[in-house]
């Protein structure tokens, strides 16, 4: 499969007064053409910062200090700010978590979608309007002509997120990054939005990076998944293997903490402990203090990503053959 996006050894740090916070600390991600890739993890694990780093939207004190972000083989981190403007919204678009606040309250939603066309293409106002209305229809906004002139506060959360999606796909990007696109929506709307995104993805072949903490969303839409923890990728595999055969203790912990209706008499499983402070990371494996299967080596050495076949990689010494057998 052709690779659309390759993130290699991405390091994004925040330079705060208390010290350097390695929010993203050597992350590798690959996204194939037409693929939907999920990035899952708890709050603060670096999912969103990874996404923002790809588009270079982070501002002081956040800074990408190392790595490569290859879009169709071209390193975005080497682009000048002027060149990056042509990528944002055009080749890579982004959908954010809060449709309530992600749209500017003082402009009509139609105008805000048309703006992105006017920025990236030589299109007249009238043409842009026509195209936006078509796009509104495509993303399932009822009465698109009327809605073009609506202000964000006049639309429901679901409709606003549809507007955001229209904005994200109107320039036919090669990659769309969705940062918790359904977290702020209620479940029925969430299902509709996910279905819509999947449908649009099938039609256009745009690759999607889906950032979420919701494993249900992952199961619903993703082809492949990266599990992140404290700024690092802990496990990556295809979505079926992830649910059938999770290898990393963190991944199994996450899966076990999903409430199940069939287990009424049991307490809900939680991973003990809390996410480590990134300013004061434990030595060795970052998950070690919370891990039920931690070994001596885990406290002193950071495990590399082990390849266990079929593109399944896991950052855990349990899968070091020499160590475990010898």
């Amino acid at each position: 499969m052709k690779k659309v996006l390759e993130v290699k050894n991405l390091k994004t740090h925040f330079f705060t007064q208390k010290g350097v916070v390695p929010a993203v600390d050597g992350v590798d991600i690959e996204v194939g053409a037409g693929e939907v890739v999920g990035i899952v993890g708890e709050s603060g694990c670096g999912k969103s910062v990874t996404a923002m780093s790809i588009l270079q939207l982070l501002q002081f004190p956040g800074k990408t200090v190392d790595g490569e972000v290859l879009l169709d083989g071209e390193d975005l981190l080497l682009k000048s700010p002027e060149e990056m403007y042509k990528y944002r919204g055009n080749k890579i678009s982004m959908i954010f978590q809060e449709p309530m606040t992600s749209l500017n309250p003082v402009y009509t939603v139609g105008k805000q979608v048309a703006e992105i066309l006017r920025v990236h293409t030589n299109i007249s106002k009238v043409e842009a309007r026509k195209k936006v209305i078509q796009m509104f229809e495509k993303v399932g906004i009822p009465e698109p002509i009327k809605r073009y002139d609506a202000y964000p506060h006049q639309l429901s959360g679901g409709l606003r997120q549809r507007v955001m999606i229209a904005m994200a796909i109107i320039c036919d990007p090669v990659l769309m990054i969705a940062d918790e696109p359904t977290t702020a929506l209620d479940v029925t709307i969430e299902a509709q939005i996910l279905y819509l995104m999947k449908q649009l993805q099938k039609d256009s072949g745009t690759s999607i990076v889906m950032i979420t903490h919701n494993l249900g969303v992952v199961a619903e839409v993703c082809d492949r998944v990266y599990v992140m923890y404290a700024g690092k990728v802990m496990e990556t595999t295809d979505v079926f293997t992830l649910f059938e055969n999770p290898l990393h203790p963190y991944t199994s912990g996450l899966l076990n903490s999903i409430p199940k209706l069939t287990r009424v008499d049991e307490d809900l499983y939680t991973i003990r402990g809390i996410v480590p402070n990134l300013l004061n990371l434990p030595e060795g494996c970052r998950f070690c203090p919370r891990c039920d299967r931690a070994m001596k080596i885990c406290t002193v050495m950071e495990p590399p990503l082990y390849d266990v076949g079929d593109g399944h990689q896991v950052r855990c010494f349990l899968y070091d053959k020499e160590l475990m057998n010898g």
Partner: protein
Amino acid sequence: MTKYIIRRILTAIPIMIAVVFIIFMLLQVLPGNPISIMMGEKAKPAVIERVSRELGLYDPVLVRFGRYVWNALHGDFGRSYKLNRQVSDLIKLSFPNTVRLAISASLFAWLMGIPAGIISAIKRNKFVDHFVMAIALVGISSPVFWGAMLLQFVFGFKLKLLPLSGYNSYKHMILPAIILGWASAGSIARMVRSNLLEVMKNDYIRTARSKGLKPWAVVYKHALKNSLMPVVTLMAIQFAGMLSGAVITETVFGIGGIGRLTVDAINNRDMPLLQGATIFSTLIIIIGNMAADIMYSFLDPRIRDR
């Protein structure tokens, strides 16, 4: 939208009535007999008694208030004791000067204050920011009479570029406009800066950046309109404040405006003139506030729908 404006105008009417009532009552409780002021200290008590009765000063206060409002609605605010002219005529005479001063000072304030605030916000914590904010602070905190005399000394006396006082030509308007506008430019700049910085933290600014807009387009197209909304209120209130008379500026530069008229009325204990001028100023402020609200609704669609 039209509904909103009509409603806003209707709500202003009771405020106006209340304000007129309060001012009327305040002046009632002031000590001193208006007739003795009017006729001088040598007037005979019997004459004072007779004139008071003729003018209806012994009527109950509410009757006199009603009469005053009725006359005021017909454009009659009474006669000035001291100048022996209709109060409305005196206001009509001084108001154009005040309007000219207010417009020139406000233009100066807006043209300086808004860009200064934007530059400060964009260059936050850089030298330019500190420099601009320092000038703004001096404008806000220095007393008008001090700044006015300083400018008069430098530009009028030493350099002889501009006239010292009076209000006959556009040249006369420059120094008063700068001195009166500086303070308001300063507060506008500070407010634009802090609002802009606040608005730039919003999610929709991140959205705008993710769309590939250049930084200046993000500021001008997405942040500015949002951050100017509270500033518009400030500007309208300041403008109304200037229209209701810039007492010190008018006095220092010898401009015959509403402010000077009010001060003279106080000094002369000229009750009808004081009452008329005060009510006029207050009405201007109320109208200014109303205009600010209506302008606000043009900028913010969320208010329009309420």
